[in-house]
């Protein structure tokens, strides 16, 4: 009995952890919590709406993923999509980054293999949050690599809820960026690790990370330019080492070879101007290595200096000549417009309206920096300070990553996303370093206070210690205040992030929600209403023309062919659609017919007050159309440089196709109490042209809140029609007619034969007879009878000539 308590306490003691184990346990549990937090904070949209794909591009990704699950990888790789860019089509396998789809399908297959009955849609919806969770892990290790594990933990927490990242990774935003940010950060982390260790294994891993990034997103260009820049900076600052040589060469060679396997990228690594920097630095590395070797061989420094000068000059000259030759011969393609627009923010506005027309390509406003980064914006410079204070290969990298990506984030709104990991990491360094300094101060002071008090009783101390003792209370309080301030700021950050996520970044944009008069939530599900109508009630091969924004959604949800879509590779084609929309109806119909269009779809917010509709996008259609077809001139649609749709609008505006399609019969509509009919709530004006007549198009469908309107293109009128209508044989109608004629005659004697004649009107005599026979065979009561007599009678009554007795064939 007596041994029991002793053994129990032993057992307890054995469970008691050492400090290091405790720390590990705390770290692992924090990481687990952060991992879960990053996932669930992105689920607002699923809880508030449903498990659905958001926005525009994700619908294309979803559609291709569906195709991949259904048809397998090889069919996917060789997929020629007839449903987009009619009549051009799209080689899907060769024009997309397959990383996202392959990842989703892989997850799907694994889950299926583990016998989880999931639908591919759910996998797609949750891919982005899942990868966001993984990114937090990478951020932890990255932070640990460049600073310490504390910074890593803070970085993981910051990036888990940072709105700049959440904006592209909420559940349902099934876009390339969702996995690409993970790949980007992973590549950087592994590369830095490789540079730090000089390990071939890590650099191999970074090559594969780069390969995954290339397969996932066009933003890989950032990696392939940042890394050589970083290496260049290291070379210039004299930090060249064998570790760097191994890491860079292995990563570059293998990464390049692997990247060439992606069809969309192909040989760009050796042929495009954007990828030349990495190659130049690669050769420079070899020169450095060679020089290093020569220096090792030569003992004479003077000789080496001379040799160095000659070699460097030669190398630069050879490189320059090679680049020049490549450029001139056209082997190396020049920089693309998108690349230019990154370096020069005003470039797109002047030269590529189609890039400038996208709202996420606009230069970033300060408010959106504040919105997306919140306190990180202030912590970022502080973090830079700490980095510079403790300069190493790793911190140089993160500084360069932070500064370059911040610049790009300023150029384009959507590139805030790329800057987010860097900002989080650098801010984490600031937070971690500050908190660590403060706590160290606090703890050491406590110790000093304790020792001081115990020693104070002893009565022997130096004067300097007394001085320190005197300043202690103030310092301690200050440290406590600063700590509380830091925690207050961090908690503000957490609140802000949650608020932004729930309010701004979690609406799927395909379903619109508004507050009703009684504060209840009203849902406008018009997009899906229209797309589903298209899917169910139009011919399978119908071609739909709309502005390119809706192309992906129409093909994915409506399952119909579109003329242009969000993959804006062919500017002329888009300009053609823009031209059709901004022309008069009779000019537009020529374009519409030439494009073989069956339906025209417009988005109109005049009834609901939905502002991002086609009328508000219309000037971009004019600009893009006018950029290719000079007949379209922007001033024609403006009055004194002002864009308006009311009575004072430009005549061309009031009669162009887009205006007509949006406002067709809108003049009869009462939208708001106390306003005249035809009051446009999105623009707050009464429309200028209420009497819209359409000649070549007819309304096919309008959704319940008028947000989507679909028009059918009428077939052209027949040029010569003798009987006034085209002659077709319709046995169904004739069946009714024969019923009147043949069978009824039996009992009644006189039948209304004359109305029947109209049924075979327009048919040649013999055709009429054949048609009647078809009708007889498909007769009404299903009783087989020989009707040759009444047939001839009918034909004669209709003043048709038939050779004596026409007998129906078997």
């Amino acid at each position, binding site marked *: 009995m007596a041994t029991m308590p002793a053994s129990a306490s032993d057992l307890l003691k054995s469970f008691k952890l050492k400090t290091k184990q405790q720390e590990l346990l705390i770290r692992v549990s924090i990481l687990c919590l952060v991992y879960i937090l990053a996932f669930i904070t992105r689920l607002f949209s699923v809880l508030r*709406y*449903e498990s*659905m794909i958001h926005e525009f591009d994700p619908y294309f990704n979803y559609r291709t993923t569906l195709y991949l699950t259904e048809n397998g990888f090889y069919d996917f790789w060789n997929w020629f999509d007839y449903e987009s860019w009619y009549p051009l089509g799209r080689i899907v396998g060769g024009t997309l980054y397959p990383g996202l789809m392959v990842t989703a399908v892989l997850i799907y297959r694994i889950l299926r293999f583990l*016998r*989880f*009955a999931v639908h591919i849609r759910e996998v797609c919806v949750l891919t982005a949050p899942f990868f966001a969770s993984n990114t937090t892990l990478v951020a932890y290790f990255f932070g640990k690599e460049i600073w310490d594990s504390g910074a890593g933990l803070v970085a993981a927490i910051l990036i888990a809820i940072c709105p700049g990242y959440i904006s592209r990774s909420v559940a349902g935003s099934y876009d390339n960026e969702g996995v690409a940010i993970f790949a980007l950060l992973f590549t950087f982390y592994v590369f830095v690790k490789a540079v730090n260790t000089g390990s071939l294994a890590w650099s191999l891993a970074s090559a594969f990370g780069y390969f995954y990034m290339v397969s996932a997103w066009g933003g890989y260009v950032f990696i392939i330019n940042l890394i050589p820049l970083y290496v260049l900076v290291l070379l210039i600052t004299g930090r060249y080492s064998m570790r760097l040589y191994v890491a860079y060469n292995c990563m570059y060679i293998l990464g390049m070879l692997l990247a060439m396997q992606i069809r969309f990228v192909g040989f760009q690594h050796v042929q495009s101007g954007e990828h030349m920097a990495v190659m130049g630095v690669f050769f420079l590395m070899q020169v450095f290595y060679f020089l290093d070797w020569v220096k090792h061989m030569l003992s004479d420094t003077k000789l080496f200096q001379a040799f160095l000068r000659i070699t460097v000059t030669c190398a630069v000259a050879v490189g320059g000549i090679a680049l020049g030759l490549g450029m001139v011969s056209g082997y190396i393609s020049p920089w693309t417009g998108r690349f230019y627009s990154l370096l020069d923010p005003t470039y797109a506005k002047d030269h590529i309206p189609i890039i400038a027309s996208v709202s996420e390509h606009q230069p970033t406003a300060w408010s959106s920096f504040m919105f997306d980064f919140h306190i990180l914006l202030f912590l970022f410079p502080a973090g830079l300070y700490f980095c510079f204070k403790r300069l190493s290969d790793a911190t140089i990298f993160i500084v360069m990553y932070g500064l370059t990506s911040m610049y790009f984030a300023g150029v384009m709104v959507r590139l805030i996303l790329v800057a987010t990991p860097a900002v989080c990491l650098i801010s984490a360094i600031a937070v971690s370093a500050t908190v660590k300094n403060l706590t160290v101060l606090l703890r050491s002071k406590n110790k000093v206070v304790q020792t001081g008090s115990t020693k104070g009783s002893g009565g022997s101390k130096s004067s300097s210690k007394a001085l320190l003792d005197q300043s202690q209370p103030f310092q301690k309080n200050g440290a406590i205040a600063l700590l509380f301030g830091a925690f207050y700021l961090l908690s503000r950050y957490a609140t802000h992030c949650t608020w932004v996520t729930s309010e701004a970044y979690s609406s799927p944009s395909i*379903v619109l929600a508004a507050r009703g008069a009684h504060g209840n939530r009203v*849902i406008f*599900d018009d997009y*899906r*209403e229209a*797309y*589903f*109508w298209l*899917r*169910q*009630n139009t011919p399978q091969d119908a071609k739909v023309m709309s502005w390119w924004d809706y192309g992906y959604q129409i093909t994915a*949800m409506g399952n119909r062919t579109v003329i242009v879509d969000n993959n804006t590779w062919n500017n002329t084609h888009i300009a053609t659609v823009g031209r059709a929309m901004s022309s008069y109806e009779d000019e537009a119909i020529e374009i519409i017919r030439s494009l073989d269009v069956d339906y025209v779809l417009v988005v109109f917010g005049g009834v609901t007050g939905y502002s991002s509709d086609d009328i508000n996008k219309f000037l971009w259609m004019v600009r893009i159309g006018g950029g290719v077809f000079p007949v379209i001139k922007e001033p024609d649609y403006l009055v004194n440089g002002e864009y308006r749709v009311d009575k004072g609008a430009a005549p061309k505006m009031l009669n162009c196709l887009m205006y007509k399609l949006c406002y067709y*019969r809108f003049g*009869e*509509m009462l939208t708001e109490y106390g306003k005249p009919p035809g009051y446009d709530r999105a623009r707050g004006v009464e429309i200028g042209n209420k009497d819209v007549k359409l000649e070549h198009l*007819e*309304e*096919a*469908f*309008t*959704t*319940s809140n*008028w947000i989507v309107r679909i028009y059918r293109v009428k077939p052209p009128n027949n040029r010569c029609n003798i009987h006034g209508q085209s002659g077709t044989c319709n046995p*169904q*109608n004739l069946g*009714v007619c024969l*019923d*009147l004629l043949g*069978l*009824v*005659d*039996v*009992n*009644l*004697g006189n039948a209304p034969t004359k109305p029947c004649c109209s049924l075979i009107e327009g048919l040649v005599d013999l055709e009429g007879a054949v048609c009647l026979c078809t009708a007889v065979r498909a007769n*009404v*009561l*299903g*009783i*087989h*009878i*020989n009707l040759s*007599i*009444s047939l001839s*009678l009918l034909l*004669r009554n209709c003043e048709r000539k038939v050779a004596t007795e026409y007998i129906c064939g078997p």
Partner: protein
Amino acid sequence: MEAWIRARVTLALTLFALLFFVSRSSPPRQFVISNAERRIDLSSHIINVHLTLKVENTGTRPASEVVLALTPTEVDHLAMVDALAIKGKRKKTTSVHLEVKPTELPDAPPIDAKYFTIYLADPLNSGESTTLEVLYVFMHFLEPFPAEIAQSESQLVFYHDTALILSPYHIKQQTTFIKTPSTKVESFIRVEPTNRVGTEIKYGPYEDCPPYSISPIHVHFENNSPFAVVEELVQEIEISHWGNIQVTEHYTLVHAGARHKGVFSRVDYQSRQFSNGASSFRYLLARLPARVHSVYYRDEIGNISSSHLRTNSLKSELEIEPRYPLFGGWKATFVIGYGLPLQDFLFESSDDKRYLNFTFGCPLIGMVVDKLTIKVVLPEGSTDPSPVVPFPVEHRLEAKYSSLDVIGRTVVVLEKKNFVPMHNSHFQVYYTFNPIFMLAEPLMLASAFFMFFVACVAYIHIDLSIRK
């Protein structure tokens, strides 16, 4: 010349008519129908024909098989035929359900009609008579004419039939009443005596019609009732012994009336509800079992946000609205799913088996289903499934893999074509199940987690590095 042709045609037509009326051979002739009354209800797109026959045995031997005849077209559209024998007189009548089977008549009939035999409960002796009530239900039988209508037009349909009841027996006296949904009747064929009062057209009484006599008629009238047809309904009933039945119903709904032509104008549809799109429909009502929970309503592209659920202790009503109003020829597909408490539907039978007792039918009210497939997914590990359905259906077995299934679940698939609401009845699926199988999945999950932790422990404690 004209007169000559006319005379010839008249002669020919008379001869032709004779073909119809002269019966060349005869089925069992011992019956004579002394009085027949037929009531045809055309108020919706499901046509109910109530036929009351007073059958008299004029033969010498007792007989128990009464033959009904239908034209081939009628048979194609026939969803259901049902017969009752009426016993007793006046107020004390009782009805007995009789068996009806399709038959072939051995001797060649004059026209290619199709036959059904009613098997009387007790043979009818010579000279006796009995009253039979026959119900035919037809679907897809009304033919829209014109076949295409614009939004503002109302829907006109043709009904084809014969004024005289097609029968292999001599009918002494017969009357037919046709009830139309409204007084708007464009035209109808008169076969004197014919009388039309309000929404009813009365044909007859006709006296002494020989067997196989017909007289084709049609009625062309307005019918704006929704021609909602479910082309295919797949209902999946998944039983979980943890206390839930999950029902998932996949619908392919179509408006089978006159096709919509030309413009669909939302202004007209919204502002002039009654004169516009009279034959279209927007709302559907589904009657679900009581205590239904977690109801959802969606389609391939996501949730459909327009539905209302009303529940009380006896039944639940789900009012759903497809994404858009359905006009003639328009289609919509959607899925309704809901959960039900297990104890309301699963019972144990005396021979140690369990059985599911569920409604065979379509929860949407007044819906015709062209092809109804019911899949009962039994829990993993259940054996000997046997369905019991009150009418003939096709059935087969399948396997389905749901979450964490290893050997797959047995699925009993029941298929019925041409389903009308009158078919609604209960069916049972019997099977044996050992409750030990319920533990399989939790145990699998638990062991997977255990393995994971063991792997973690092993990884921490084993040093795999090559260098020391």
